[in-house]
């Protein structure tokens, strides 16, 4: 063990000296010389491992679970943003363990990409898993969404304590049948009135019902219900979701405030999080934390409703998930977009009126090479205000998309630094929304960092 940790740290040190930068390199070396390191190290944790996976909201939700558990008294190990693969977890562990391999934590909360989650559970069986949703995302990497659901079913099968499932996503709710005997299931859910904000992947297509007249009338615009949850139409994989009683239900959303239903009682709370989807992630996190609290003695962790709600209200937004940076008096909201549903939810959550909008689309590996996803996003909500600036490697693809949607486009500039600078400095005082793909977000933060103070969100700049 001593040798493993020492060598791993040596590699990390070298990687930093040589500005190799890849956080995964030490993990790679350790995986080779000591394949048992991950399982052995995590096995020391008295309350086990929490695994968070799904298409949208992994990072935010992992951060929420970790923040809440530590607020409630546990010492939490978690993997930093962007290292959501097995090797990244090993690398993160190397920085935390003592030279004798001792991990000073009560519980681990790990975010894992769907495909890596399968590798992970072969080595380490999580005590808890939280499965969020399956959406069209980076299909070029995983194939098809039914396949993605199959990947997550391996996680459900491997979980020893409690599996927490999204009641409103039929592919996720159906995973209850994969949970082994002795492992319990909890659901988080939405009140009926809020379901319209969260069409499932199937319901995105359910708008194409019957004999519509023009293409215009059929594009589901942001914020309008598909009606599918009332009529039962369109949810092909319907599992009769409402039959399951949710452990935590998001009941109402107001400006920086929300109501959660737990044990038959409504709990109102202020929140620092933005956007209805982040609050639904909070419901997911609450349910997972309640499952942990049920297993951990009260002397070790507070698990009462008041403490839980307080912990939710203290959670701050993660990198690119409604993070606001002040640039010379203009609040600039950074919004990470990586798939059609995420983009749709962001557009629905942040009204464009009174704001300048910029969209930056890159197509590096981490963003997804395939641009067809842009055609699955409904941009009609931007018609009124238009988009002031379009940038990124694929700026012209985005401009073409907006043009076909009849959204006015101001400037298209593939020079990213110039685009960001001119966008944020125009119209001082006017709030700005910047929708960026992953690598565009990293670059945007770097450019903004030269203009103003940008906090390090654990991902580097």
């Amino acid at each position, binding site marked *: 063990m001593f040798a493993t940790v020492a060598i791993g740290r040596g590699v990390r040190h070298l990687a930093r000296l040589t500005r190799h930068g890849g956080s995964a390199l030490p993990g790679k070396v350790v995986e080779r010389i000591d394949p048992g390191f991950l399982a052995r190290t995590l096995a020391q944790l008295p309350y086990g491992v929490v695994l968070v996976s799904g298409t949208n909201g992994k990072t935010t939700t992992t951060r929420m679970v970790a923040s809440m558990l530590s607020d409630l008294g546990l010492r939490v190990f978690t993997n930093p943003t962007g290292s959501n693969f097995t090797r990244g977890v090993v690398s993160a562990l190397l920085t935390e363990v003592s030279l004798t391999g001792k991990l000073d934590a009560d519980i681990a909360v790990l975010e894992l990409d769907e495909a890596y989650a399968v590798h992970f559970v072969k080595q380490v069986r999580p005590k808890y898993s939280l499965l969020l949703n399956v959406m069209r995302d980076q299909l*070029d990497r995983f194939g098809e969404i039914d396949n993605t659901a199959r990947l997550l079913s391996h996680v459900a099968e491997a979980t020893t304590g409690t599996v927490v499932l999204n009641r409103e996503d039929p592919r996720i709710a159906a995973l209850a049948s994969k949970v082994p005997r002795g492992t319990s299931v909890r659901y988080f859910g939405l009140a009926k009135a809020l379901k319209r904000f969260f069409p499932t992947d199937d319901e995105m297509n359910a708008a*194409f019902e019957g*004999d519509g007249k023009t*293409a215009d009338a059929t594009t589901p615009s942001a914020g309008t219900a598909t009606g599918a949850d009332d009529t039962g139409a369109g949810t092909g994989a319907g599992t009769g979701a409402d039959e399951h009683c949710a452990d935590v239900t998001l009941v109402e959303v107001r400006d920086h405030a929300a109501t959660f239903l737990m044990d038959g009682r409504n709990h109102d709370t202020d929140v620092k999080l933005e956007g209805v989807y982040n609050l639904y992630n909070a419901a997911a996190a609450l349910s997972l934390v309640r499952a942990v609290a049920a297993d951990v003695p009260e002397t070790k962790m507070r698990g009462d409703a008041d403490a839980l709600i307080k912990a939710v209200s203290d959670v701050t937004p993660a990198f690119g998930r409604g993070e606001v940076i002040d640039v010379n008096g203009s609040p600039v909201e950074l919004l990470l977009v990586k798939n059609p549903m995420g983009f749709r939810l962001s557009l629905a959550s942040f009204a464009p009126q009174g704001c300048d909008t910029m969209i930056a689309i890159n197509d590096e590996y981490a963003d997804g090479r*395939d641009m067809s996803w842009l*055609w*699955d996003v409904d941009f009609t909500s931007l018609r009124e205000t238009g988009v002031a600036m379009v940038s990124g490697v694929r700026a012209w693809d985005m401009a*073409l998309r907006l043009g076909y949607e009849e959204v006015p486009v101001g400037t298209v500039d593939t020079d990213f630094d110039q685009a960001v600078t001119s966008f944020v400095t125009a119209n001082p005082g006017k709030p700005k929304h910047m929708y960026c793909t992953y690598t565009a977000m990293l670059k945007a933060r770097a450019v903004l960092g030269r203009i103003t103070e940008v906090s390090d969100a654990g991902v580097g700049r």
Partner: protein
Amino acid sequence: MSKRIDIVSLYPKDMNIYGDTGNVLTITRRLGLYGYEPCVHFVNQGDAWPEQVDMILGGGGQDTGQKKIIDDLFERADLLRGLVEDGMPMLMICGLYQLFGEYFETVDGTRLDGIGAIGAYTVGGDVRRIGNLVEHSEDFDDIIGYENHSGQTFLREGVEPLGKVGEGLGNNGEDGTEGARVHNMIGTYMHGSLLPKNPAISDFLIRTAVERRYGSFDLSAQTDEQRAELSQLDEYCAKAREVAVSRPR
């Protein structure tokens, strides 16, 4: 009174993936900008076939989607084969491209029959061909898109491909073909979405549909404003194509 063109969007609920709706939007918007009045009929399983149809657009789907529509597709097989023979302009992407062929044989040997509108068959493969793709065609310039499929499609002798591609790409990775062309129907693995970035194909489908219905394609109803808007879109498109061909697979 502008002239109407009726478009069927085939199985938009279950065969609609990777931005296939972008193809429908491109056709309707361009038709409108040429001074015609587009009318889209969404035809899912069990829906009545519209009285007037000038063009059919179909998309890709997952295995589950293909299973859901297959019975209905067979009910309409004679109709669809007849329309292909008759020269109806059609675009079938990915999943429906495969099902318009003779059959699909999965890796374990199960055979799923297609409707045989295209002389082609598909066998399941272990390799998924995924990535940016540029194919060459005399009729449509370079066709730019993104392929993502594991099925290997083989064209029968005499069946024209949509375009030519390099080694390891396209229909089957072996013979340098991509897609198929039967009269005015185009089958292809290209997403992108295909039509927004390939106006030559969009305009071929539009022109053919208009000529079949009204005898000739005329722009008499097009306003200056519409012309300007179209040229704006085409300018965006030209630049998007330029970037797309320079990107890694």
